[in-house]
């Protein structure tokens, strides 16, 4: 369900973010559906492979796309359980994202380009802290809900979780938002639109990709944004009406709201100096920890 929605709507979400930014900047901006056109254009192009590269370069974008799609298959659509749900599926989700990162970074190194190498280096370095924060955030969710499958946790959220541990969930949501921004190469951590190679992270990695490979990468990035937005939306708006379609609708609305919020943040903030990024990420992890401490059961029992 979630996977299907994401495959359909993820470019739209990217469009929402872009549009929000454009509006705030006083520009008209690209149409909402521009991302779909971009992807189609890329898919129709012929790729150019550097003679340095190997099959790794060619396979990695699709591996990474498959991994993110797999992660989406584990994500509940709002309160609706995901098609694949089992205790501990959140771990698989985190490690599928890691697989995507692993593949992209290797592809970057495969080009032998100094910029791609630099991007991969930074991506992996920030990934360390981002992954830590994400796992802690999810663990905090486990602590709060007492369930250890994503779909089950989502199911637990409306029933009193917000009531019993609102403070914990607020912190958690803040942490998740931060993680969303860094995992998707957003300001203040990275700038998806920059053209100065030395300051890029994610974009620097994919400099050499083109055609269908770039489409896979871009598509993967959009799916990833959707994934995090959806997770965040589930946490902040676990709306349960009783009618599944209404719930889904509410969820989609929440996701769109998250997209707008991301656009607002990107417009309102400046990019952090690279050296400050780890501090911010550590702050996210601490937020997640703190949310765990505030979780029911009187915090962490010794």
């Amino acid at each position: 369900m979630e996977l299907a929605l994401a495959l359909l709507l993820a470019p739209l979400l990217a469009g929402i973010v872009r549009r929000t930014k454009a509006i705030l900047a006083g520009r008209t901006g690209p149409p909402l559906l521009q991302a779909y056109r971009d992807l189609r254009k890329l898919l129709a192009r012929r790729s150019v492979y550097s003679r340095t590269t190997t099959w790794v370069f060619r396979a990695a974008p699709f591996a990474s796309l498959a991994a993110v799609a797999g992660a989406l298959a584990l994500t509940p659509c709002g309160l609706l359980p995901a098609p694949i749900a089992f205790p501990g599926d959140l771990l698989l989700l985190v490690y599928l994202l890691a697989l995507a990162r692993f593949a992209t970074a290797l592809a970057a190194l495969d080009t032998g380009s100094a910029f791609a190498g630099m991007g991969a280096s930074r991506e992996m370095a920030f990934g360390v802290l981002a992954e830590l924060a994400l796992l802690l955030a999810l663990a905090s969710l486990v602590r709060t809900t007492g369930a250890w499958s994503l779909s089950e946790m989502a199911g637990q959220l409306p029933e009193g979780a917000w009531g019993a541990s609102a403070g914990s969930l607020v912190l958690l949501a803040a942490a998740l938002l931060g993680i969303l921004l860094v995992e998707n190469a957003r300001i203040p951590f990275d700038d998806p639109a920059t053209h100065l190679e030395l300051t890029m992270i994610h974009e620097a990695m994919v400099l050499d990709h083109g055609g269908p490979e770039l489409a896979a990468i871009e598509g993967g990035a959009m799916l990833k944004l959707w994934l995090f937005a959806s997770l965040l939306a589930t946490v902040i708006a676990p709306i349960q009406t009783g009618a599944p379609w209404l719930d889904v609708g509410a969820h989609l609305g929440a996701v769109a709201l998250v997209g707008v919020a991301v656009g607002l943040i990107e417009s309102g903030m400046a990019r952090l100096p690279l050296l400050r990024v780890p501090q911010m990420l550590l702050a996210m992890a601490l937020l997640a920890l703190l949310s765990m401490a505030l979780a029911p059961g009187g915090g962490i029992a010794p």
Partner: protein
Amino acid sequence: MTLFALALAAFVAGAAGALLAARSPRLATGLGAGGAVVGSLLGLVPAALVLSGRDVGSVRLPWSVPGGSLSLAIDPLSAFFLVPLFAVGAATAVYGAAYLLPEARHRSLGPAWLWFDLLLASMALVVAARNGLLFLVAWEAMALSSFFLVVFHHERDGVPRAGWVYLVATHLGTAFLLVLFAWLAGDADSLEFADWRRPASGASWLFALALVGFGAKAGFFPLHVWLPEAHPVAPSHVSALLSAVMVKLGLYGLLRVVSLLGGADPLWGTALLGVGLVSAAYGALALLAQRDLKRLLAYSTVENLGIAAVGLGLGLRAAASGATSLAVVALAGALLHVWNHALFKGLLFLGAGSLARGAGTLDLERLGGVLRRMPTTGASLLVGAAAICALPPLNGFASEFLIYLGSLEALGTGAPIAAHALAVVAGLAFAGAVAAAGFVRAAGVALLGEPRSAEAAAAREVAGPMRGVLAVLAALCLFLGIAAPVALRAAAPAIEQILPAGAEGGPALRAASALLWQVAAAGGAVAAAGAALLWLRARLLPAPVARPVGTWDCGHAAPTPRMQYTASSFAQPLTRLFALVLRVRSSAPEPAGIAPAPASFGTRSEDLAAGVYAGIFAAVAELARRLRPIQAGSPQLYVLYTVLAALALLLWKVL
């Protein structure tokens, strides 16, 4: 047991044959490697039988050494460790045969195979021994034979020193085991494992002794210092065997002692967990800072043994507080990790050996572009790297998944060990992500991009058997990732053995097994989806431009491979963040003058613990130096000592 005895006999025969045939390299290799392979295959049978629930009996023969007896048995715990021992033993023997042959021009291969076969035999004996003295003798024989393998290239710079560090470290560890065994034997007045009981008091001291003694072998921080010394200098098939199997015997020893002591105290689990976390985190960080590929892999061993220790610690702690299902999951994860690590670390070390042979160097800064030149080796190494980063659907994920799952369960149910669980989640996440960065760096820099040196540019794919072994191991990594429940079933009886009496592990095991199937299915689906996408891309979308072009270089004129991102710069964001732990020293001579000479910038990381030991050794040496004037040479002085000794003695007792 007959088969097991035959396996030992095959090892010994191989060893003796290799030594006797030392004059002919081919014959020595054939006999030595043949003995190892035959023995390993023979030994696998009883181990597999035991794991499938059969009883293979035990042996107890007299041994004239006081307190000693030749008592051997294979219980599930032993069998679980025997399987990787024999499997990796056979693989490394096949690989080693091809790997060592070129060395025959410089030296006799007889001794190398003698020690290799003896190492296998002594390791098997360690796992099967049921007498304290026999265990210790086998334990030291293992250390000794591996020492001689480590110093195989003894004429190279630094190898004697590395050998010394290895020997001293392992011997110091054994010293603690001596106390442990002497203590247990003193209480029971017997050296038979069967007679040993948990003492009324001081059991925690015993565990502490075991933790230090076996931890030194397992490479727990801060006892790990020998690993990064010994591995880089050892021949690669030996490094593989040591890292994949021998260090695991440290874990085996710990588990054996725990089961002899009748289960763990809560404190023990916590201690093991703490040690494991520190090892995992430190190992991961340190591996990030290494230039030498095998040194990097050695630190990765520290990290992975740390992960296994975390699982064991969590499991023992949970078992001690009665949370059986949680304990089962964590222990299962730890044990599976033993198998998995044996596979992918064996793969990686053997792959490193192929790089050393094929590309002539293991210095990351001199490698690059190897995947194009050594396709099979490179691809297998990539699989190994992905597996060690615990990426699904490979085997590393299955074991880490179970350990995580145990801690999530503790967090979710509000079990009293939530703090432990939280530490595990945070620690494993951190170590795992850092290690992932480290292996992206290692694999990316070594295998991908452009070659950074002439050797790497001239890299040639290695001999068939070496490639074959790598491919088989890589396939096994994938297989155990999908078929992890099979491994779990093999581990089940061993887990039951570690659990305190009366704890029912069955249901939790079945649940975990079902979960692993689901994980495997999801992982498999992702892999299939990836493959399908690639197929679709090839079939439906436009073909790539055929004309070869260079990598886009931002318009820079005449880029050279030296302008690629280096391994050191790749690691820099993280090494800078953890400079305190990694003790990174940079050396950058200031360019001077109007036309400065070529400048260089380098960083290197020193081991955190090695410095401490160096300080201790220096202190002892200083004490010794200060005592030297006692032996000043004058006979008058010497007579005076004698007189004073006599006077002192007489004053003490008589006068």
